[in-house]
């Protein structure tokens, strides 16, 4: 529906309801921001008795935090790379042809994200233990890559469908083989959507906790670290600061991804 309609003004009740929902969505994030500065250590009193930045310092002293952060970054980077490769291959295969199993394959790609995380998590865990694979960083990565494929696939396949097919034909007509056509014509065309999909996958992986809990051994990714902090009452504001950190790290790729896909569609 277009922006201007018969009665250009929304009824007040609608506006209140709509913006109420928006405020409901966002005020917790502001609370986190506030509590990162509270002076109190072990309770959540509102209003906070005082404000301080000491917790930032304390967080940065914690070696386990840095280890967890490093692991999360490592896992996210590798899982995203795998997902970008596999997602692109599937997108290239499926975007034009309509063959017998096409819908099944699409469903299969979506399944890891459609089924509850606990199902995926337990399934992977029991499969690994059945085969006898120990739980390492790589088992975490395998789990993450599996459900990250779909974000890359969705982005790339949408872009591919919008590409003029005649460009590909023109390239081949001018003497470029299929590989050369991919390198000079297709890849530049999908570059932004590939990157956008990758960024979304990165954010997804960085934040994931349920599947990770099941596929990790002793390793702690950042969400797992936060989770373990949650159940311990000490140093709450430190956890607040970490939470703030996570929000900042995931916001950036999301906004970037959004602008990239917008540009590409114009």
């Amino acid at each position, binding site marked *: *529906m*277009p*922006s201007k*309609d*018969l009665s250009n003004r*929304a009824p007040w009740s*609608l506006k209140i*309801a*709509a913006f*109420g*929902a*928006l405020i409901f*969505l966002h005020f*917790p*994030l502001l*609370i*986190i921001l506030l509590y990162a500065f509270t002076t109190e250590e072990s*309770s*959540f*009193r*509102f209003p906070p008795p005082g404000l301080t930045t000491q917790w930032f310092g304390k967080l940065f002293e914690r070696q386990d935090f840095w280890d967890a952060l490093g692991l999360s970054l490592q896992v996210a980077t590798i899982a995203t790379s795998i997902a970008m490769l*596999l997602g692109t*291959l599937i997108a290239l295969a499926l975007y034009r*042809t309509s063959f017998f199993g096409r819908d099944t*394959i699409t469903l*299969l790609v979506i*399944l890891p994200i*459609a*089924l*509850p*995380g*606990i*199902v*995926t998590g*337990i*399934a*992977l865990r*029991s*499969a690994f233990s*059945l085969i006898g694979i120990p739980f390492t960083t790589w088992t975490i990565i*395998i789990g993450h890559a*599996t459900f990250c*494929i779909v974000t890359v696939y969705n982005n790339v396949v949408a872009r591919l469908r919008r590409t003029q097919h005649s460009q590909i034909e023109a390239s081949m007509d001018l003497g470029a*083989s*299929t590989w050369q056509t991919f390198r000079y014509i297709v890849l530049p065309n999908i570059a932004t959507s590939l990157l956008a999909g990758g960024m979304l996958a990165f954010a*997804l992986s960085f*934040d994931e*906790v*349920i599947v990770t809990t099941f596929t990790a051994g002793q390793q702690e990714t950042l*969400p797992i670290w*936060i*989770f373990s902090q*949650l159940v311990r009452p000490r140093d709450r504001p430190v956890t607040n600061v970490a*939470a703030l950190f996570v*929000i900042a790290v*995931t*916001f950036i790729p*999301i*906004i970037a991804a*959004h602008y990239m896909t917008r540009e590409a569609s114009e």
Partner: protein
Amino acid sequence: MAAEQARSLPAPRPSLLRKISAWFYRHPNLSLMALLGVPMLWMVVVYLGSLSALLIQSFFRLDEFSGRVIREFGLRTYEQLFTAAHIDIMLRTTLMALAVTFTCALIAFPLAYYMARYASFRMKTILYLLVLLPLWSSYLVRVYTWKIILSQEGIISWFFDTFRIRFILDGILSIPGIGGTSLSFSFIGMFLVFVYIWLPYMIIPINAALERVPKSLIEASSDLGGRPGYTFRRVILPLAFPGVVAGSIFTFSLTLGDYIIPQVMGNSSPFIGITVFTYQGTAGNIPLAAAFTVVPVVIMVVYLLIARRLGAFDAL
């Protein structure tokens, strides 16, 4: 003149890559399989493989004395599944999922409607971004924040105290069954957090469905004498419904399988998620845990089939 010019232009150098490309061009089906080969290997082996492993596990059983899993096929574990206590858990979880879904739809709809119908193009982009941002920012963090907000010393308490309406809060908390000692340890609290977390998953499909309602339909309706309320009920709502169903797939499925929110906010009444987690963890009873996960999967498959009938897949 053309001939001598043609002779002066070299043909592209034949190379192995080129010959391979030519071969693949002649055999489109094989190139399809080559492209799909590696990813499908991954998906089938890793993902489907482990899902089947899980299913198979649910037919095994745990030997109570030795604590080891006996790898024989049988339905004993399923018998253990359908005890009164377990069914209680399943019902409780399903009820919560329904309540969450319904409330999400209620809150999401006005915002989605406003975005689709009244927002300018610039506004729409900003609003969309604002809805997406919480969706992609840390799930754990957002759950955790609500713990802070709802705690005894938190902002909600402070609010009720400052405005001297504490008794309302106490009243809500004393409702048997869903109340509790504090908001952060009650079903109500849990319910609030679920609604909050899954809300964007409901807003986006409803907005997509509403965007697809052509303006001409609304004009036609009012042209034929329908008042705004009537137009809304009879034209807009039915067309937006598939979007609601699509969103409900997410809220329902996510609530069914979640174990973190009940654990963080709960008062130790078990839900499906926690139960599965406990069984496979400390109890080591993988078969029972597996059997338990089959339950939400089955519920979701049934739900998905119904949803597809109602046209939700087109709205995704």
